[in-house]
């Protein structure tokens, strides 16, 4: 009562961020009051310590609130055709209860966003993505009548659950058979034993490790949290925020909007957005399928070759190459690219980065000029980079079914 009264009288109410369905639990654990925001939600940067939380992802298990992620239910006889025309990947082959990673482009073949499509039934799909996309979905529906698009962003509570002990914890929570769920597959359970309270679990995530995403009715968000944390107590469960996510996804080699790519619909300067080829997402573009948005432009772009290519770099030394320039020579006379994300990888023990590199420069030696500071004084150094073809971190357990023991 007290609370709602305070909120009613809050003259700053309009300025304050929305609270996620998991907020009551997460706010208690956010010991450092380290909040930032995502799509209007109050969102933890970290809770206790970013590196600690990162190690929970790699060593035990941890939860990440994906309530602020955008979710759209696309249903109807035309749902599949509409989505297939929108994204670059062939989703007509997608089976029910499977998930696929997709991206979609403008007519000019520039990347709008990436996300995942869940096939929940013959005529029912769930699309998830980082940024609000309802307007683009509507635009992409032109010509399709048998279609319903629902913005479910605020009507599904979702929690990402990542790390080596996750499968054991879900088993302990009573989800029989969860160990048989394969990567990119979906399983349906009834939470607390009632068919009225479905719990959907997908073996997906953004960490490159073993992990799942849990989808449930918002009314059940807190009971789900409590059940998960009770089961996870002996398995090192811990919430993590944006900082740890960013570390884990970089080790896995995943791209992040606002880091690796600038969403095409939000890009002012000509070609400051990216093509899927520049982002090394060639494998997401299926020219064999029927017409899709941006196909013609993408074909031309493919034939032309990309000026830049996103590359994974292993960099000498231990100073993260944040916001650095890349050069073809140690003297730094010939600039050939720039770093988009960089960090010291605590688990791999390597200085890693993702970088946009001029495609032609990839075959030759690469140097990076790193700026760093030591007790306020700035320093710089030029060190060698090696291009890596595989993700920095890709443990066996992330792929195997049942997952290897932790």
């Amino acid at each position, binding site marked *: 009562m007290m609370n709602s009264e305070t909120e009613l009288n809050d003259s700053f109410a309009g300025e304050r961020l929305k609270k996620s369905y998991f907020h009551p639990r997460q706010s208690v654990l956010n010991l450092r009051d380290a909040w930032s925001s995502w799509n209007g939600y109050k969102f933890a940067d970290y809770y*206790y310590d970013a590196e600690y939380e990162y190690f929970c992802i790699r*060593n035990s298990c941890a939860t990440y609130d994906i309530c602020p992620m955008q979710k759209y239910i696309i249903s109807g006889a035309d749902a599949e055709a509409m989505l297939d025309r929108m994204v670059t990947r062939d989703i007509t082959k997608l089976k029910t209860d499977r998930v696929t990673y997709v991206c979609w482009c403008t007519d000019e073949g520039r990347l709008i966003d990436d996300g995942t499509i869940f096939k929940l039934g013959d005529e029912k799909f769930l699309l998830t993505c980082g940024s609000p996309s309802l307007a683009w979905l509507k635009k992409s529906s032109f010509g399709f009548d048998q279609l319903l698009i629902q913005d479910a962003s605020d009507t599904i509570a979702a929690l990402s659950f990542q790390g080596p002990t996750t499968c054991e914890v879900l088993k302990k929570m009573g989800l029989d058979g969860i160990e048989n769920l394969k990567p990119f597959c979906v399983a349906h359970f009834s939470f607390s034993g009632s068919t009225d309270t479905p719990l959907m679990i997908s073996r997906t995530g953004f960490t490159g490790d073993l992990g799942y995403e849990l989808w449930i009715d918002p009314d059940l968000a807190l009971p789900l949290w409590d059940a998960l944390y009770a089961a996870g107590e002996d398995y*090192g469960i811990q919430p993590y925020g944006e900082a740890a996510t960013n570390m884990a996804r970089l080790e896995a080699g995943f791209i992040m909007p606002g880091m690796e790519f600038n969403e095409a619909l939000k890009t002012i300067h000509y070609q400051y957005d990216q093509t899927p080829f520049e982002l090394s997402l060639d494998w997401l573009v299926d020219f064999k399928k029927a017409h899709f948005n941006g196909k013609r432009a993408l074909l031309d772009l493919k034939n032309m070759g990309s000026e830049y290519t996103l590359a994974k770099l292993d960099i000498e030394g231990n100073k993260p190459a944040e916001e650095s320039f890349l050069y073809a020579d140690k003297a730094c006379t010939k600039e050939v690219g720039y770093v988009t994300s960089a960090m010291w990888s605590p688990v791999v023990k390597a200085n890693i980065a993702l970088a946009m590199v001029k495609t032609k420069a990839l075959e030759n030696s690469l140097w990076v000029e790193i700026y760093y500071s030591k007790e306020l004084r700035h320093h710089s150094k030029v060190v060698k980079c090696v291009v890596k073809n595989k993700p920095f971190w890709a443990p066996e357990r992330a792929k195997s079914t049942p997952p290897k023991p932790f």
Partner: protein
Amino acid sequence: MKKYDAIIIGAGHNGLTNAAYLAKSGLDVLILEKNDYIGGAAVTREMHDGWFYSSCSYVCSMMRQAIHRDLNLTKHGLVLVPYLGTVVFADNGDTMTSYHSEEAEYNQLRQRSPHDADAMFRFQTDLGRYAQLIRKTLLRTPPDPTSFRPRDIKELLWLAKQFWSLGEKELYEYIRFFTMSAADFLDDYFEDDLIKAAMASPGVIGTALGVYSPGSAYILLHHVMGDVDGNIGAWGLARGGMGAISNALAGALREHGGEIRTSSGVDKILVKNGKATGVVLENGDELYSEIVVSNMDAKRTFTKCMDKNDLPPGIYEKAKNFKIRGSSGKVNIALSGLPKFHNVADNRYINRGGQGFVGSMETMERAYDCWKHGQWSDDPFIESVIPSAWDPTVAPPGKHWMSNFIQYCPPQLADGPWTPEKRDAFGQTVINKIERYSPGFKDLIVHMEVRTPHEIEAEIGLTEGNIFQGELTIDQLLFNRPFPGYAQYRMPIKNMYMCGSSTHPGGGVSSACGANAAREILIDLKRPNTVPEDDFYDE
């Protein structure tokens, strides 16, 4: 009969490191291990059903990141995770928690002593200054101060430059620091006894010195100069226990074509015409090689595994008098649940840290007095960690294993040799003490393993169970380690080398001794160097 390029004796972490780097350079390498498992003191063993103990060493902070990276130890299964704060317990029941956040830490110290809370900044800064200098020497071969070889002169000048870069005042302080006691050093900063005791405790771990003994200040530094991912002073756990380090090194060694033979204890190092030519195993088999590298401690190497007549004059005596006194014990305990402690909040992060049963400066010194008289104290200093609170792989879910390191435990008792009964009585003092701070602790015990210097020596081969393979006092550090004139890993017998913690930079799971020795061997064999340079965060 096959002749190897190199035989390394002892598959502890330094031996494995040395062998891996020699193999990486293309040498045909064989490493021999007396036990039927590898790892030496960096080992994980399932000692009770589902419980995996790191039987000897239990945490790590000195592991050279450059080696981890260079040998791709992550690929071979090694994941080092930092562990969180420590709670220290005072005799009077007081506790002090070191939190993971600087602000929380400051607030907590301020509650005890506003003066000491402020002084902690200066203390950490001074330690940081001393540590950065020593850290730079870890992956380098100490210069011979009496040699005129260009390499030695160059290295001496480098060392001098590092010292001079401290500034004149700090240089004097540093020299004092090497010979000071931890207590005297701490008196310059702190007033509160528990804060002092907490800070002094690393100064006696593994060493036959008390907090008031000259030389203990350096040991303190040795324990705080490590880092985990650049967090200086942080300690880490190896996921899967300390054996994960040895196993990963063994993986790297095999990847480069090296051979590991267990259950192959060495009886003697073969010497012919003043040159090492191979080894005789305990079973009488002879194995031959171009060079022999001992990863055993200096005392064991020269007094047990070599013929006195094969050694130049004086070496046997030097080895016999090498300071390698046993002073610590270890009690590994399997627990049915997480213990709860008096005056410690039920804080999941703090539960995942360590416990320091320090008591007070006085209590630690009294425990040392007992050691001097060939007794164990019934009020010992115990440093504990519960790795299972962090590492899901070392105990069944919800169960725990607690590593308890005990300072002090005498290698020889005044009232005759160690017996299983005395060992268990010693172990009892440890659980009695913990029970004082954690009522009900005893009821949680499922299994325990008590290790006195006697067990550690018998099993691992460390003389007197000394965890550092020789005391870390200035007379046995840098170019004095193990003996003056022999600090560059080459031993008085041709084609013979040492690569264990008896050599620079000494004890701790660092891989540095093994790597440094490999670099020297490769120089002698005129082969390309495979050992990386160290990487530093404070460049």
